């Protein structure tokens, strides 16, 4: 009896602990349905709008979003930090996760470029220490070395080992600080051989495939044709990613579509992703690029 009472007291304390509130509903895509993510760029400007945080929260609710990737700069000012903490509090109250979106084009290179990315991760950890009740739940990496001229070209994956190293370095910092890690990837990376794909998918627990440019608003295709393209290509890339790899310590994959490709049809296409891939054990959910596209003047 005493043991039960003690357990109850401990549970009550935990419920009241800010960190537990922050982690409430953490990690959708594993236990509470597929991930439905949303990128939010230029977060200071978005949050500086009147009731900007509330508008974002309401948008997430109306569009079925359960995690948000909020751009974060290591040079975030104190007022911007306060606004971010306010947003994260609102999102958590709505059972929506918040990941700090960190971007780079050269963090695959060891040395100062990678250190710069790692410094951003450390800054996110400091943010969480300063705002324990409104902390980020994860790190969302947008590292795009394929954008550099030397990495262009079909089949050119010379940057992959460095990219995997960067992912592992971020993970080594983030996971002890109770931050999940999710990395954006391009379909080019899935065209590597089995060893290259294993290297990528074992470096980070979650990836988000940017499945862009399958369609355009003026391509003349019907809604059904666009949906069929989404279904066929999402299955193709999921198969391509895990082909020949043994299940185990591999990342799960979310698939992202973007507004310029589908405009008002985007929600239908995202729904199609879930319908087509829900049974695939590697499928994590979908992500939507981006909230900024839904704002006036495209911001």
């Amino acid at each position, binding site marked *: 009896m005493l043991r039960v009472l003690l357990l109850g007291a401990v549970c009550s304390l935990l419920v009241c602990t800010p960190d537990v509130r922050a982690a409430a509903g953490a990690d959708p895509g594993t236990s509470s349905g597929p991930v439905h993510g949303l990128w939010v760029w230029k977060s200071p400007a978005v949050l500086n709008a009147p009731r900007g945080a509330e508008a974002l929260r309401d948008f997430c609710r109306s569009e079925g979003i359960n995690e948000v990737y909020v751009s974060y700069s290591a*040079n975030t000012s104190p007022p911007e930090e306060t606004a971010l903490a306010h947003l994260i509090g609102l999102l958590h109250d709505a059972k929506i996760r918040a990941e700090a979106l960190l971007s780079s084009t050269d963090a695959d290179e060891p040395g100062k470029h990678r250190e710069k990315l790692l410094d951003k991760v450390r800054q996110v950890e400091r943010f969480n220490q300063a705002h324990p009740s409104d902390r980020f739940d994860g790190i969302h990496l947008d590292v795009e070395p394929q954008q550099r001229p030397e990495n262009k070209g079909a089949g050119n994956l010379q940057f992959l080992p460095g990219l995997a190293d960067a992912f592992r370095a971020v993970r080594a910092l983030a996971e002890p600080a109770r931050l999940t890690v999710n990395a954006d990837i391009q379909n080019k990376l899935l065209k590597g051989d089995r060893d290259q794909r294993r290297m990528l998918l074992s470096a980070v627990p979650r990836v988000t495939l940017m499945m*862009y440019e399958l369609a355009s608003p003026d391509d003349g295709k019907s809604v059904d044709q666009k949906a069929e393209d989404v279904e066929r290509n999402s299955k193709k890339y999921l198969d391509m990613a895990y082909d020949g790899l043994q299940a185990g310590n591999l990342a799960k994959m979310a698939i992202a579509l973007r507004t310029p490709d589908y405009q008002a049809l985007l929600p239908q296409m995202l729904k199609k992703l879930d319908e087509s891939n829900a049974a695939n054990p590697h499928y994590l959910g979908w992500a939507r690029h981006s909230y900024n596209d839904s704002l006036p*003047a495209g*911001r």
Partner: protein
Amino acid sequence: MLSSGISSINSMAAKFNPVLVAAPSPSASALATGSKVVQSEQESSYSTSVAGQQYWGSVERAGGDYTATVPNLAGATASGSSQQSAEDNLNARIDELV
């Protein structure tokens, strides 16, 4: 401080970016209304603020990627899979350069 009031700046971004309010240029006044200055389907002009300085440049789309550039600042170019990603990367690049 690296901030990110960016292209097609509207009143929201202008409020966020005191530099833009304090010292608008002719092009900034057009941007401040929220009217994106689109030169073609593949290119648009934009404005960004980094470390309190205002920069004007362009974003081009080619081969599915976006490249943001500030012409009068050597080395100030960055790419991304989306326009927003390219602009975010450019802000970081400018922050390194200045």
